[in-house]
């Protein structure tokens, strides 16, 4: 387990909370930095622009590392599509942080909640559904593909599609349908 900075903890314990979240998606060296605040925030010298997103609960394994962390990002302007279609989102990283503002909207404190998640990504049209998973082996239906070159089953960066699998009696393996 890890601890948040005390200022953030105090704010979260109060009844009137003024916190915002920061999302930094890095894919092939390009950063997409977003905040759920209604105005841009500059934190640590980096600018986070407003964009709606929703982070699901992080799932921790018994080894206390994050296994799964799902973020839905508003993609109505399709800004992420080219990166996901034309790029290689696999093994991108994601940093999810929390920032605390005072009444004058100055940044009081900032803390990283989750960071450097090796990732694979799935996307649909208007909502970019980002599902970083640490390591291969976390089987999620429809998010894997057969790699003809390596012969392995790899995470799939699909766009609005799902892959289906079936048991092959000849080879005894699970193959794409």
């Amino acid at each position, binding site marked *: 387990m890890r601890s948040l900075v005390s200022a953030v903890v105090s704010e979260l314990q109060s*009844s*009137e*909370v*003024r*916190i915002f979240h920061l999302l930094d998606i890095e894919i092939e060296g390009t950063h997409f930095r977003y905040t*759920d*605040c*209604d*105005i*841009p*925030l*500059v934190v640590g010298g980096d*600018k986070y622009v407003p964009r709606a997103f929703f982070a699901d609960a992080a799932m921790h394994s018994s080894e206390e590392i994050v296994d799964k962390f799902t973020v839905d990002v508003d993609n109505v302007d399709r800004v992420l599509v080219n990166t996901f279609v034309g790029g290689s989102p696999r093994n991108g990283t994601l940093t999810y942080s929390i920032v605390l*503002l005072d009444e*004058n*909207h*100055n940044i009081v404190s900032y803390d990283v909640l989750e960071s450097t998640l090796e990732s694979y990504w799935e996307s649909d049209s208007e909502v970019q559904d980002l599902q970083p998973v640490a390591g291969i082996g976390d089987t999620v239906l429809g998010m894997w593909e057969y790699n003809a070159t390596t012969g392995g089953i790899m995470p799939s960066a699909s766009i609005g599609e799902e892959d289906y699998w079936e048991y092959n009696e000849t080879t005894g393996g699970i193959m794409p349908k």
Partner: protein
Amino acid sequence: MAKFPEYSSISITPRVVVKIRWKTLKTQFNDESVEKRRQKWLYPRRDVIVRYNHIPKSDGETLWEFYNARKGSYSSFNFFLPEPEMSYPTYTGEYVGEGDGSTTDFNMPCKSAVTHTIYIDGVAQNDGSDYNYTVGGGTDGADKIDFDDSAMVTPSDGSIITADFQGILKIRCTFAEDIFEFETFRDLFVSTGVELRGVLNE
């Protein structure tokens, strides 16, 4: 940016109702003793309802053309409140914009301001030395501030510009609806009013 048809171009001055809209996330587990609330917006939006006592067909067509030119709720425009009968109201802490380290001109969320104070990240600036103020010099006749003089410091990336002023409020907004027919659109102006949905100043 476009602006709502001039009051002088419509034969009747509208009655305008302005609603302040904040956004608060409340716990779904609240009971009467404990309620957690999270502020989602730092600055409010203003929604507007525009009504006319009656509206000639030609004026209805002017507004209809404007609505279609905005493509329904797609394109934003500037809406200025009507001239008050008495003195101009005072507004405090209004959002002007955000610096990016290079932009030097900013449209004010008002026009015809008779008093004004500009703040960058909460620090009051001096008119004439830190910035220039031009009444009516901005887009659509809004007031404008600039940091053009060589001795002035361009607002840095991420710095927030706010203002206190006494003047006519400008509301950047969109139509709230995407679907209308002309008769309904025109009738709404003289019955319940047509709703405009506020967005942040630009």
